[in-house]
């Protein structure tokens, strides 16, 4: 979680970083835009709480689990988390507007925005999963099993690449077909009375 906040050094009180460019080699951020006190509040419900940084957490992990690397890729986590939250907030906002407007279907501007809104859940879901899976590194079961120890030794990398390529291509083709079918049915004139036979 702290990698999602790109907080390298322990801070008290901790600032929330709206934008950051992390440098994983130097273990610090090259550029930051901060909101003071906010991260303490978000983490511990107190504006003066102490929030541990990545460097301190890694020392604790080395003491507990032995030598090694324990910090997941910070840039990926940081931006994935923010995109996810932004997409989520936008969805909530659009939902509130749809309920608050008296006749949302009569507002062409709102409808145009809503036309693009279905991207938001995909965005939120995908970045959320990216953050969950990238953030768990190096553990596959936290504290008990590392990813490098859980890899099947009998499955060569070539097989994995093969399956990744095959499934990606298959899904890409099916997605295009699904989209074209959706457009076809979405742009039809509404036919009255025909329900089951519509397919």
């Amino acid at each position, binding site marked *: 979680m702290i990698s999602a906040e790109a907080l390298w050094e322990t801070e008290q009180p901790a600032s929330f970083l709206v934008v950051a460019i992390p440098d994983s080699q130097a273990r610090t951020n090259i550029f930051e835009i901060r909101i003071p006190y906010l991260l303490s509040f978000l983490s511990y419900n107190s504006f003066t709480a102490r929030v541990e940084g990545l460097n301190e957490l890694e020392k604790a992990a080395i003491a507990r689990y032995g030598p090694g690397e324990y910090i997941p890729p910070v840039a990926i986590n940081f931006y994935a988390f923010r995109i996810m939250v932004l997409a989520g907030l936008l969805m909530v906002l659009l939902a509130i507007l749809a309920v608050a407007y008296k006749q949302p279907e009569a507002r062409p501007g709102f409808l145009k925005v809503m036309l693009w809104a279905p991207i938001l859940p995909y965005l939120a879901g995908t970045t959320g999963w990216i953050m969950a899976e990238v953030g768990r590194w190096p553990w596959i079961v936290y504290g008990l099993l590392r990813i490098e120890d859980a890899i*099947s*030794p*009998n*499955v060569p990398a070539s*097989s994995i690449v*093969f*399956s990744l390529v*095959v*499934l990606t291509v*298959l899904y890409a083709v*099916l997605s295009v*077909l*699904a989209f074209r*079918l959706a457009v*076809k*049915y979405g742009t039809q004139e509404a036919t009255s009375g025909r329900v*089951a*036979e519509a*397919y």
Partner: protein
Amino acid sequence: MDLNTLWFILITVLFTGFFVLEGFDYGVGILLPFLGKKDEERRMIINTIGPIWDSNEVWMITAGGAMFAAFPQVYATLFSGAYLALILMLVGLILRGVGFEFRSKSPDPKWRNTWDWLLFVGSLVPALLWGVVVGNLMRGLAIDARMIYWGGLLPLLNPFALWGGLTFVALFTMHGANFLALRTTGEVEKRAQAVAFRAWIAAVVVTVIFVVWAFFATDILTKPGINGLIPAILAAIALLVAGYFVRQGRFGWAFGMGVLTIVFATVMVFAGLYPRILISTLNPAYSLTIYNASSSPYTLRVMTIVAAIFVPIVLAYLAWTYKVFSDRVTGKKMVY
């Protein structure tokens, strides 16, 4: 009876349910381009399994999931060892599942014909590969002391396992033909009735060869103690009686005998394996058994309680689904 044995039996039941139910789905998919010569006929065939194929496939997921939870080492060894075969099966299943939904959504005949053949491939490949998997279960895999199979895809495609695949395809095609003879009308029904007998003959020939081969090449039928000999004999009887009912034109009974054939055949495999699950051809001491490959007793206990509560519920709504969609497909109202 200990929990390990109980879960071995439950997994047998789940795999049996899976082969019985998905068996006729695969059979229908395999017969689709042949029994349906016109678009409406093919649509009729698809609509016989349209509402139920997905819940049938859930049995496979449950069997795999129960295996993962109760015997995780088996899940790991088998699924990692057969990685490429599983990917192939997965592609087949994806095409099949999408095919049911996409096929009738465009009136273009080229679109529909392409998807009909993709449905065929997506039904044939998993049926074949499951037979190959079961054949390899019976024969054993080259598993080392660390419970790892290093052989890759080609040794899995050995002659015995491939014949197992052919046996599954033949049995499922017969099963599917009986199902279609019960669920369709008109020309398709007549064709299904005709095919049912030819498929039965093929199934008998292929299965007899497979069982005799298994008698000599594996210990499934000859192992001391619990083995698969009696279920094999019962399966053979059921299969022969199925042919009698097909000849008589009594397809309800024929289908029922097909169900019994698949049930006894699956029980034959698992009874012959017990108490092993994955046989090691390198050294019997390396075989995965229900004891060295299982989860902890606590896990098994929790799973048993959960299963006792939820499996009856699942079976109840499955029966309800079948009842709702049990009418013959006449071609008048086709949702798929």
